[in-house]
């Protein structure tokens, strides 16, 4: 039997994912071991392999077939626009993609005048402003601490993930508009879906069952 490879997005999703897989009878304790230096973890019994990757890289591994199955936030899937099957909403890791800024910036969103938007998600931001709001925007790609944008005057608003809103609040910003709700998703390489159909469908069905019983 061939190995099925899982790519897991590093960070907050890993723990919930492994707990869910455990409920489906899939175990690999090493994955959550923070002290390990290993990059790839194996479950020899079920012929499964796991590795952790940076979120935005997960769809890349899956699209190229380097991983058969990926687990990653929907924000990444929307941003990367890769050719992968999105087969299951895991329901956890819930948050929202939002336009945020200082309260006075709300005014700017009600016109069609050009504004500057800072974001880690340039594609999502562009798609929202161009295709949904018909507003011309200048998008500035940042790689972290996007909240700084409006504070230091780099941009008028930001487009970012909001979980509780406390970071925004602490910096005098607020959610101005919600773009879409987000959660963790299971993605699958289209070729793997054909070549390993039975195994993959069983794993996905088991995960779904485990989610329903929660």
């Amino acid at each position, binding site marked *: 039997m061939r190995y099925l490879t899982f790519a897991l997005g590093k960070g907050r999703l890993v723990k919930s994912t492994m707990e869910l897989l455990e409920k489906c009878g899939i175990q690999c304790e090493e994955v959550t071991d923070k002290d390990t230096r290993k990059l790839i973890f194996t479950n020899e019994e079920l012929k499964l392999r796991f590795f952790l990757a940076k979120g935005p890289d997960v769809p890349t591994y899956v699209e190229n*077939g*380097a991983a058969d199955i990926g687990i990653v936030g929907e924000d990444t899937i929307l941003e990367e626009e890769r050719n992968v*099957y999105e*087969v*299951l909403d895991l329901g956890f890791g819930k948050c929202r993609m939002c336009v945020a800024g200082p309260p006075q910036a709300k005014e700017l969103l009600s016109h069609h005048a050009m504004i500057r938007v800072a974001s880690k998600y340039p594609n999502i931001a562009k798609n929202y402003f161009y295709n949904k709001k018909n507003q011309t925007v200048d998008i500035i790609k940042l790689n972290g601490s996007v909240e700084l944008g409006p504070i230091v005057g780099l941009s008028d608003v930001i487009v970012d993930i909001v979980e509780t809103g406390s970071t925004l609040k602490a910096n005098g910003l607020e959610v101005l508009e919600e773009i879409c709700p987000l959660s963790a998703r299971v993605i699958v390489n*289209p070729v793997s879906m*054909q070549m390993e159909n039975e195994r993959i*469908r069983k794993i996905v069905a088991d995960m779904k069952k485990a989610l329903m019983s929660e």
Partner: protein
Amino acid sequence: MSKELVHTPEGVRDVYGRESYERSTVKHKIKEIMYRYGYENILTPTFEFFDVFAKEISQASARDLYKFFDNEGNTLVLRPDFTPSVARCIAKYFMEDTEPVRICYSGNIFINTHRLQGKLREHTQMGAELMCDGSVNADAEMIAMMIESIRATGLTDFKVTIGDADYFKGIIEEAGIDEDTEDQLREYLSGRNYSALEDYLHQLVKDGKIESKFADILIHMPDFTTADELEEGAADLTNTRSRSSIERLKNLYHLLDVYGAADNVSFDLAMLSEYNYYTGVMFRAYTYGVGDAIAKGGRYDNLLSKFGKDAPAIGYMVDLEYLMSALYNQKIDIPYSQEPDVVTYDESDYEQKLAMVQNKRAQGYYIVLKHK
């Protein structure tokens, strides 16, 4: 010489040495199969008017074309796909003919994919098109040829899935689903996002937009099924479009069995057409070691009429880039028949060796003559 000039631009590469030989061996084997079926070679230009491709591809992929202008201001593109070019050519030269036309081609296509994804922008494709024949026999000939072409390269562990664009269209018509809803359904189905599909359909049923019967059918669209189970796909449908597509797939399977090509075949009724031009049966071949289909094709009965000739057609193509990486990945031995012998000479025996070598070359041997 400046150092930068030794690099190729991103997304294209040199193929040389052994790989180049192996590639032409594989090409030769595929071409041989096409010739055995009586397909004639065709050459179409590397670039054409944008309009030849414009209507057939989605807006997103229109952005990925290499476009430029000629000095009269026409927009030209490097071909991203052979089928529209071949269709244009056949419509032009066989306008009056009603006899089936069998054409094969091989060449490079160009797609300006996004940067840094590890994807090539120039792919070699080999394909065949059977025009002016709308029968299920033509469908079977195409799929059997595709399977034989792949087998001829030594690849054995691959799968072929077959779907039919009419099946889904028939359901949409029978259920009276509007265009926006259809788009949303297509998005979920093509992403195999069954959980979202289920939620969405339940909502539609609740809002009274579709009958629950159709919601059930769409949720349970058989996406990986054997020929024997095909019948279930038509069980609850009354529309002729879906039902006849199921009938046709069953006939097709029978014919493939006669061809001896039914082993690797399964059916995927949730397969939706990715190009706008596919109208009936669609098929793809998959194997281990590559992230995309190594070969694909389908029926496109409306494409020729865009060039003024109303005739059905079907075609397939093998993507040599993906096929070669599958062969290398699965360590499949490609016969390396053209490796030349080496004959060495020194000053004293050059003329004598040369005569001997020329004689041998005339007999068809491959020989390198070089200084000792």
